[in-house]
């Protein structure tokens, strides 16, 4: 990783989270024939929130204060560890399971912080978040593990590097994993059709309800961590799709980088389109949607296992897998 790349990474790291969420908001407005807020509106919001003083429930313990900062710092670590851009620091520890556990830790902390205040709404949000993540977790794990099986490593950096040989089978694995990750991230990030981030209806919210007690700088940190998480998830699935593309065509590095960033924007565009045209699912029907994410990742794993079976076939080890 040379100097320019480090510079690029830092710039994208700072700019993309704000830009993507502003982009989605603006696009949604455009699709409704409104002019919409400026692209940098999330930044202005953050500025506004940082200016404000905090109101904290009397029942809240210090945990409630700490968690946003804690989550934000975990998210910072994750953003460096996860290869969501075509270039990244090759730090040790980008293990699939470490990454998954860090994500889970964030979720855990935000849930207990939400329960901490004793507000019925945030408790609701927390319980819903717990249910949803219990359902989504397998999908995310399996998508990444499928890639791990296909490349026989549990190091994300290694999986997402270019050194591996490719075939059409890899294309299906990458595509299925990417699709599984994207669908799961819609659930994880509480976006449509599971949760409507623009709704004002406190009874149907998940993420918004969970953080309903937070205000001021604390809320700003939560927002920032959320935006960063969005970009990391989208970047990861975009990378999967890009790898599938790279199998089919030869792409030089500079184009690849540009295309990767474009892909994140395309996913954001897709999100905006889904949020404008999709109908929010009934709470009871949510598992049906999440099942799709799980199915994609299961299929990816199946494909990866098949591929291993083929590999052993070529070694003359007929049917060893079976």
């Amino acid at each position, binding site marked *: 990783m040379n100097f320019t790349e480090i510079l690029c990474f830092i710039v994208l790291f700072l700019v993309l989270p704000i830009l993507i969420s502003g982009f989605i908001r603006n696009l949604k407005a455009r699709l409704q024939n409104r002019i919409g807020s400026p692209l940098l509106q999330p930044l202005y919001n953050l500025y506004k929130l940082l200016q404000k003083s905090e109101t904290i429930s009397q029942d809240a313990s210090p945990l409630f204060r700490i968690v946003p900062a804690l989550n934000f710092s975990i998210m910072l670590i994750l953003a460096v560890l996860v290869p969501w851009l075509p270039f990244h620091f090759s730090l040790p520890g980008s293990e699939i399971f470490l990454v998954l556990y860090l994500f889970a830790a964030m979720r855990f902390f935000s849930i207990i912080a939400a329960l901490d205040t004793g507000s019925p709404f945030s408790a609701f949000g927390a319980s819903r978040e717990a249910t949803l993540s219990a359902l989504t977790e397998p999908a995310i794990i399996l998508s990444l593990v499928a890639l791990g099986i296909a490349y026989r490593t549990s190091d994300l950096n290694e999986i997402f590097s270019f050194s591996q040989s490719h*075939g*059409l089978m890899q294309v*299906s694995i990458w595509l299925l994993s990417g699709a599984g990750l994207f669908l799961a991230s819609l659930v994880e990030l509480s976006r449509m059709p599971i949760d409507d981030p623009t709704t004002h209806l406190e009874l149907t919210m998940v993420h918004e309800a969970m953080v309903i007690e937070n205000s001021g700088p604390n809320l700003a940190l939560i927002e920032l961590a959320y935006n960063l998480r969005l970009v990391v998830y989208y970047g990861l699935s975009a990378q999967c799709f890009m790898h599938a593309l790279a199998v089919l065509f030869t792409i030089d590095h500079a184009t690849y980088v540009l295309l990767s960033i474009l892909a994140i924007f395309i996913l954001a565009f897709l999100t905006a389109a889904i949020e404008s045209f999709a109908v929010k699912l009934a709470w009871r029907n949510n*598992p*049906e949607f999440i099942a*799709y994410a*799980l*199915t994609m990742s299961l*299929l990816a794993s*199946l494909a990866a296992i098949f591929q291993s079976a083929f590999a052993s076939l070529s070694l003359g080890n007929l049917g060893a897998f079976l």
Partner: protein
Amino acid sequence: MTPLEFLSIAAAVFAILMCGTGLLRFNLFLYSLQTFSIALATIAQSQQAKEPELYFVAIAIIVVKALAVPYFLSWISNRIDARSDPGILIPIPITMHAAIVLLGISYPLAKSLPHILWLSDSTVGATVAISLLFTGTLFMLTRRNALSQIIGFLTLENGIYLVAVTCTRGMPFIFEMGSLLDVLVAVMIAGLFVFRIKKSFEHIDVTQLDGLKES
């Protein structure tokens, strides 16, 4: 992995995704995609095996099975106001996962078929074909709506067709066309009967058709 195999895997994926929803229009859309991939697989096969007449079969499939039939069925579903299927026995998401398990089972089954059955190395094709048979049957067994039954049947039919494409060196042309015509007629007649069922029973739930039980 050849394009034929890639496309047939896509067909299997679409068929599996089809099991995951009770919304008929979405089912039909996924069925259409699945049939479309099978038609493309046919074209890939025709290039590989140098059988130009398969082109016509592919075009006929696209026109009849990927476009006309889904359009006809969705027209019916709108006309009789049947838009979704709650399913029976097992929850719909579980059906989808059962279909994945069946896809997994299809692989050893395909491998244990007599070896002559793949003239080229078409284990994947045979796997997908068997999985489509399973998925179609599963779909028919776990749905209660008469229209869903038709969709399940069509998926099964697709599986059979894929067997013909991947496991033989070209079925006789006239036979392909004849069976395609049969499918078309069968769907039309089934559609008419669905109308009738809706009219006389005011629902199209086949599990409630039990007036003739042994008693």
